[in-house]
């Protein structure tokens, strides 16, 4: 009898520990999924469901008029309206040290982000810069040729790359509207432009609801779809995250079509050895047969 009791207690303790560790490791919840939104994990697309847990490296593809809201465990919240492409590079776990920043890249689309003093700071990167948000609410619109953001409340630090690998930081405060076209310097205004307001999705005009508490039960299973194509991978194979994505997408080089497209596209240095093994072959081995069929090096698998 004692053995049975002891076993039961041990089992309960194990369950509690598992639940605790699962919660501690939780990074965020997709609390609003409006439309057919998909998330790329490793190299596979999944159909996103409300309540799904966020993970480091998630690439979220939001189509036009669709919406996703991601609430990080610390309280930092992002609402993304499509067409948008977002990469959650690093999301602090629930038990992460205070002050650990969430690192998110907005490749294109509209995003509203909020962070408080008590929640995790957010580093929202876009093409050619990043916004460091510690206590405030911002609305950002980014596309390859144009970036603009409005500080709805609080303040945000704009970090821009400078010559010699340095960075230049400028503070934007509540009510300020910043915008730039291409690589030009940011211009500021004391109110958002009419074109910004007109184009801005209505969903972002309201405060973001806190819905995470509704999704405390087990997350829904995500349905796996196909693997990432080269066209979908290509936007990530340049810029600051290139190395990480090259390593992540390397297994796809085993796919003949993916590999052919990769070989035809601008070079990805990390893949060069795989795609063009003849360039790295010793000169005396030039006569080796069928260089194109070289296996994928284990280093980038």
């Amino acid at each position, binding site marked *: 009898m004692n053995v049975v009791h002891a076993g039961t207690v041990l089992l309960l303790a194990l369950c509690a520990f598992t639940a605790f560790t699962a919660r501690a490791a939780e990074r965020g919840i997709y609390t609003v999924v409006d439309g057919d939104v998909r998330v790329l994990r490793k190299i596979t697309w999944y159909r996103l469901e409300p309540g799904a847990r966020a993970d480091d490296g998630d690439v979220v593809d939001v189509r036009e008029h669709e919406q996703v809201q991601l609430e990080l465990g610390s309280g930092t919240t992002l609402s993304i309206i499509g067409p948008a492409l977002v990469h959650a590079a690093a999301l602090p776990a629930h038990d992460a040290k205070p002050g650990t920043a969430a690192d998110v890249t907005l490749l294109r689309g509209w995003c509203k982000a909020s962070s408080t003093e008590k929640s995790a700071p957010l580093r929202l990167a876009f093409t050619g810069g990043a916004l460091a948000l510690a206590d405030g609410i911002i609305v950002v619109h980014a596309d390859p040729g144009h970036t603009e953001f409005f500080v709805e409340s609080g303040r945000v630090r704009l970090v821009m790359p400078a010559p010699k690998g340095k960075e230049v930081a400028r503070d934007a405060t509540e009510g300020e509207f910043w915008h730039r076209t291409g690589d030009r310097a940011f211009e500021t205004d004391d109110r958002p432009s009419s074109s910004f307001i007109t184009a801005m999705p209505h969903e972002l*005009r*309201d*405060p973001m609801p806190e819905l995470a508490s509704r999704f405390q039960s087990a997350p829904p299973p995500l349905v796996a779809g196909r693997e990432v194509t080269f066209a979908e991978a290509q936007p990530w194979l340049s810029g600051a995250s290139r190395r990480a994505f090259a390593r992540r997408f390397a297994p796809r080089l085993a796919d003949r079509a993916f590999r052919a497209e990769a070989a035809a596209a601008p070079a990805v240095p990390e893949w060069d050895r795989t795609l063009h093994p003849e360039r790295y072959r010793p000169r005396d081995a030039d006569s080796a047969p069928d260089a194109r069929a070289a296996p994928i090096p284990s280093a980038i698998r």
Partner: protein
Amino acid sequence: MKLIWKFNLVLLGIFLLGFAIAGYVSYRELQANAREEIVQNARLMMEAALSSRTYTTSQVKPLLDTQLKYVFLPQTVPAYAATEVFNEMRKKHPDYGYKEATLNPTNPRDRASDWEADLVNAFRQSKDNVEMVGERDTPTGRALYLARPIQVSSASCLVCHSTIEVAPKTMVDLYGTANGFGWKMNEVIGAQVVSVPMSVPIKRANETFRTFMLSLAGVFAVTFVLLNAMMHVMVIRRVTRLSAIADQVSLGHMDAGEFKTRSRDEIGVLTDALARMKVSLVQAMKMLE
């Protein structure tokens, strides 16, 4: 003059006097009730307007505060909300009106007209004056107005109406910088004016009065006819017969008829007395012979 004519003259006089007094009193009462009903309607509309204002301030505006940072939404302004609610009502009842008549409004449609400006100035001159009720002619007929002062009683009003620098930029973008600024705390800046048409309640009161007077006249007419019929059957006809027999008896025609009756009323008693008198007269005549 015959008894029936005298009776009818008196009865008609009483009827006419009663008709006139009843008409005068009921007309005044009905008109007063109609006006009171209009005033109550106006007060109800005023309370509805105040409720719209309070609802907008306490529940709608907080929900739209974030949106106001992007674009000014007049729907968050209490005056706008109250006016729009009544504009919806006016689609079905165009004769009713509500206006937040203001001397220096942000929205030009709220600018006070001449007579409204007089009301506002009256409120500004007398702080104790909290409500004014009056009548005026309008293109659609006579209307009753009820006005209450709009006083800057909250600092939140001054966010939009003190200076251009403090006002929300999105509001300035929409309405410009020319109007709606310079308001001061506790200043009476306008008046809520409710306008209610008088024609309908007055018409209803007049119809009620006409129905009442016609009914009264009908009752009088029926009473007149019945009283005349009763008078004829119960008094005139019997007295006429008695007097005809008495007249013949007095001329010595003892066979003119009998004073006979089965009634025990006053005329019956008189008939019996005349019958005894005739018997006595016959006996006296026989004794003389």
